[in-house]
């Protein structure tokens, strides 16, 4: 199976024939009776894992089962922030692995995922923030991950709309900047992986919901029951984000996960005004500008677990009062669209990428609000884990057992609390 070349030249050539020659970017196959491996969940992580299984491990007889349409979950609902300036060695290794893959992903997939390393700036508003961010900066430097400290004036120079007045309620006292961080085009990640995996023989099967997991006498996975029939495989990787608990329960596996609504919103498109990504954990504001011109703003999670994919009005109100405080010129801009996703959160807010107690069953979950940035790296090591039935050194710490044993990777706790 070959994929059509994507390039300026091919666009020109096919443009002359009114683009009649373009084929499906990925096939719409009927599910086969059996596969060497099945991925449950057609988001970026799942499609990417299928791609790397085929590309790097020679396992091309793979199906990706998606209950809706690919990229329709958190892949298509997030604010596309990419960075790797995490504190702990384990996290930094995982996310930096990902950033390195992002840097060549458009070329690797022959699909423009629009990775834009425009810089991610995290604002410090308290003395405590300064201490935490400087700890990150030092740790990252020693880990070979770029992250630098900016004084308020430097932060303003990097992001001109930022209000650095000392009169506001929580003045900007400085910022940590990762220049290699940035954004990418979320849909393109799903579609690019799908197209590339398809070209390597992977069957991408949409509108196919898993309803049960069959296990053999020894307890190992042997087949999935789906809305499109029974599909056999002895290797099943679950990459289903907010619905992971539901799928894993079918195999009797309990996970330390809770699913929360998370919202995001965009403004109407405006001419370029915002050159980077800005995050403020202290006052809960996450903002960048898309190539189309919309300000893309991440809101907080709701307080309660839910599968409704919608959040509350007051969450948006708190997000936007913070945005308007930091960027007072944006007060007259308008919210165009708001949406919600479901994020699965672990007790230490770090993911699980691991084997499970059920032989042949693997899980990649618990990404909380930060899964998009990890897409290529997570998919890459998950494929490795599935192919070799053992963890890649990068995901080795991200086990299920760490919660029993107390080896948490608690980035959120390390950011600590004000004293």
């Amino acid at each position: 199976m070959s994929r059509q070349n994507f390039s300026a030249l091919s666009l020109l050539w096919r443009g002359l024939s009114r683009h009649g020659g373009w084929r499906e970017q990925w096939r719409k196959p009927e599910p086969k009776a059996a596969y060497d491996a099945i991925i449950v969940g057609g988001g970026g992580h799942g499609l990417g894992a299928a791609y790397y299984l085929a590309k790097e491990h020679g396992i091309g007889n793979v199906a990706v089962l998606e209950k809706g349409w690919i990229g329709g979950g958190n892949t298509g609902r997030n604010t596309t922030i990419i960075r790797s300036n995490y504190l702990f060695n384990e996290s930094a290794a995982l996310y930096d692995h990902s950033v390195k893959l992002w840097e060549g992903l458009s070329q690797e997939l022959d699909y423009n995922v629009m990775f834009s390393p425009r810089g991610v700036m995290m604002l410090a508003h308290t003395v405590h923030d300064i201490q935490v961010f400087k700890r990150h900066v030092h740790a990252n430097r020693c880990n070979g991950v770029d992250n630098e400290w900016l004084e308020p004036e430097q932060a303003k120079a990097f992001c001109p709309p930022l209000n650095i007045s000392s009169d506001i309620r929580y003045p900007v006292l400085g910022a940590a900047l990762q220049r290699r961080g940035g954004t990418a085009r979320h849909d393109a990640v799903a579609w690019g992986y799908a197209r590339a995996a398809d070209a390597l023989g992977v069957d991408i099967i949409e509108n196919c919901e898993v309803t049960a997991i069959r296990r053999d006498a020894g307890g190992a996975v042997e087949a999935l029951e789906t809305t499109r029939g029974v599909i056999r495989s002895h290797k099943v990787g679950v990459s289903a984000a907010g619905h992971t608990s539901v799928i894993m329960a079918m195999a009797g596996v309990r996970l330390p996960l809770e699913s929360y609504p998370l919202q995001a919103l965009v403004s109407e498109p405006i001419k370029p005004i915002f050159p980077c990504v800005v995050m403020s954990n202290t006052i809960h504001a996450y903002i960048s500008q898309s190539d189309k011109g919309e300000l893309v703003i991440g809101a907080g999670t709701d307080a309660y677990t839910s599968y409704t994919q919608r959040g509350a009005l007051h969450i948006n109100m708190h997000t936007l009062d913070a945005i308007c405080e930091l960027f007072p010129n944006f007060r007259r801009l308008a919210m165009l669209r708001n949406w919600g996703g479901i994020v699965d959160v672990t007790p230490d807010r770090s993911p699980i990428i691991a084997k499970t107690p059920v032989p042949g069953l693997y899980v990649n979950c618990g990404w909380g609000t930060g899964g998009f940035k990890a897409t290529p790296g997570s998919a890459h090591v998950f494929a490795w884990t599935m192919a070799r039935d053992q963890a890649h050194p990068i995901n080795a710490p991200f086990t299920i057992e760490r919660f029993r044993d107390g080896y948490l990777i608690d980035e959120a706790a390390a950011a600590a609390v004000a004293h």
Partner: protein
Amino acid sequence: MSVLRTPGGGRVDRERSLQFNFDGKAYAALQGDTLASGLLANGVHLVGRSFKYHRPRGILSAGAEEPNALVTVNPGAPRDTPNVLATQVELYPGLRAISQHRWPSLQYDVGRVNDALSAFFPAGFYYKTFKWPQRAWKSVYEPAIRRAAGLGRAPATADPDRYAQRYAHCDTLVVGAGPAGIAAALAAADAGARVMLCDEQSEMGGSLLAETMARIDGVPALDWALRALATLAGNPRVTLLTRTTAFGYFPHNLLGLNQRLGDHRADPDPGQPRQRLWMVRARQVVLATGAIERPLVFPGNDRPGILLAGAARTYLNRYGVKVGVRVVVVTATDAAYQTALDLHAAGVAVAAIADVRAQPVGVLPDAVSRAGIEIMPAATVLGTRGDRRVSEISLGRVQGGMVRPAARLACDAVLMSGGYTPSVHLFSQSRGKLVWNESLLAFVPGLSAECERSAGACRGVGDLTAALEDGAAAGLAAAPDPVRGSWRPLPEAGTTGGCGWLGALPQPQTTATDKAFVDWQHDVTTRDLALAAREGFRSIEHVKRYTTTGMATDQGKTSNLNALSIVASGLGVPISQVGLTTFRMPYTPVPFGSFAGTSRGALFDPVRRTPMHHWAQARGAVFENVGLWKRARYFPRAGEDMHAAVARECRAVRSACGIFDATTLGKIEVVGADAVEFMNRLYVNSWTNLAVGRSRYGILLREDGFVYDDGVVARTAADRFHVTTTTGGAPRVLAMMEDYRQTEWPQLKVWLTSTTEQWAVIAVQGPNARRVIAPLVEGIDLGASALPHMAVARGRICGAPLLLFRVSFTGELGYEINVPADFGATVWEAVHAAGQAHGMTVYGTETMHVLRAEKGYIIVGQDTDGTVTPDDAGLSWAIGKSKADFVGKRSLERASMRAPTRKQLVGLRSRDGRTVLDEGAQIAALPGQQPPMQLIGHVTSSYYSAALDHPIALALVAGGRTRLGQTLYVPMPRGEIEVEVTPPVFYDPKGERLNA
């Protein structure tokens, strides 16, 4: 007066003319005009450029669905507002607006070149190219794309306006004040309901504002509406909200309404809000949101002068504006015939009505024929001409499945009507189930998910009489105490026949040359949709994302159903199988400022201040934010920076005495017969043998074993503890205590009360502390043996009740004076005055941090970070060893929590005796490493110690307590710093000073 203005009628004030300015040119209009009607009255149709191809675009509609006419109002002024709809801008004298997204001008836009090259920019072209060279995306392609994208410009200055928010409750909220909504509000109000009726327009009445023929209750429909509205306005239980858009439908019948209060005023009062966001909780909701006319999809359907037929009727009847002098009507419904008749009566030449239906029959076609207007049945549109304004339309005739050219007609406006799409946005937001109605060619509300019902055109009941009945029935059913189960939708009412056309109009086999637009603003054409299908994007969500159809600022109000139909027919499946994209909040864009409301400036978050705040402020204190509190960080004197001020403050405390405001520490009164048991179960310490009048340093863990909070806990009576917490920790510690008290140990007789704010706390620390307070304190023996370190006593000070702690967070002899908060400022001033004879200096949190670090006292949240156990922090001594259990104990028993390699709190001294380490700096055991390094810890606190005259630091280091005396390395960008590992207590390790 313009020839395009009718001589009379409509809702504009003929007596009040005004001037406005668009793109630098002055125009005349009337009070009551919108920017759109004002421009049309002056013959201006060209108002914008499309997003991708920069095609000239005119006004398409007369309402919130407008995709083309986006302008910037007040450009460059303080109230600069981009991306507003000309159809919604109410004119006032002197209003200035400009067009957007064009360069150098609206008339001549170089971006138009994109249109010529459009063959190479199909849907999703950017996914296929711009990949090489790797770095060029960020540096070359993306900046170019970004510059080309976007619509208006963000304001260059901060918004000067206020915004308000208000909660409201009602029995019945009616959204939309057209005929169905007014009928619903009347019925509900008659039944005694507390009613709110809102409408997005400047005037209520909906379609009746442009109605000239219909009559209700024997009077012209509009008169009926005005009378009904007057009745409602006179009812004190009814609230009428105009210019108010119900933008969001949230769970449990909460609706978000945005009311525009100031934008239509030439000189808004700066003291009044520009907009008000209502959060309305309604027992019952009636959605009477009407329907939106659908454009027809044919080649060249986007030229200025081509607009919706209903909009043309609105401009004529409501605003007294003719959209042209010679028009062609293209329609799939009877409704447009009425437009033709009205225009004809107003003297506009109607060149023809091209009806896509094979045999238009009925009252209206008959009337049109009688008026001498030609009807062309089985018609289609083959194309249009005219650059910045339509000048000609090419019509075809469909016969036997073949399309043949039929006529070319000159015209200056084309009015199209593909039928009406019910506005089900809010219903869908409420999670009600939409069902496809094949006879209506529309999705209509099915099963409700909330206490809600739809009425009138928004559920396909378009006929005026039926809509009124439908509204009245809905309003009555939505009155208070409806019969349980009555929230189910009403049975389907009668509907108007003839439901229009979906998708592209028939075209000849040969491919048309011009584009047929589905989504005007985003330039999505039938070809783009076909390409998406060809490339395998079959889910409607994929089509939307790949082509961006329906994602423009109008969110597909005019385009979604046509796009859906084209995709469905391309795939050969029924529309109901393709499904709809999800409707999202907000219905129309809502300013960020409305969401933010009053949360701005000083009101962004509460500012908590202590009773001594103003004293500190008057003395030039520099404050820091700690949670919501403002705490004095240091008190610089003239010429001092923080370093100098802190060094001075530190020296004063060590050599004489200092005074410090510790009011913000959390305080919880734990009272009851089981108070001791409760504290034993919660804190790591043992409390059983703590005597009344004594205190102890307490540590609270989370159940996972990590340090959560700490503070001094005093036993003030056998059944009473005065627990202090960290400043930021106070609320969460109380919440955690309540959780265990209520849910795990409800049998314990113990109660919790926050007393954080009851007490002002004045710390007096230093060798002279006793001498300072002794003359002021009554009823307490301050002698070292009577009131030793960690003792607590009650007495009086300066006439105030006193709870006196002998405690020290500095390592010096120290007291904490607790007085009821109203006394805080006066007692503080008295102590400060008394201290002047003893060298007293006021100090802030920074000095407090240095002094405690010299003593190795930790700050939770700085020296611990949520991954630190008591043993890690060197606090094992505090744990009650004989206790079987306390919160977190079981977690500490896991092997990982006892590993000798855990990071432990130690002291660090720079080998050079000079370098103050960076807080957060990393620590390595081996020198000379390159990234990625093997790191064993980090610096948590670091200061220059004035008392010791050398830098000190606390650090968490793997196996730190086994490394005392070792040399470690702090790798910094400018080289490594050698440090020696020391015990964490630098100053007075024996504690002689605090026991003085």
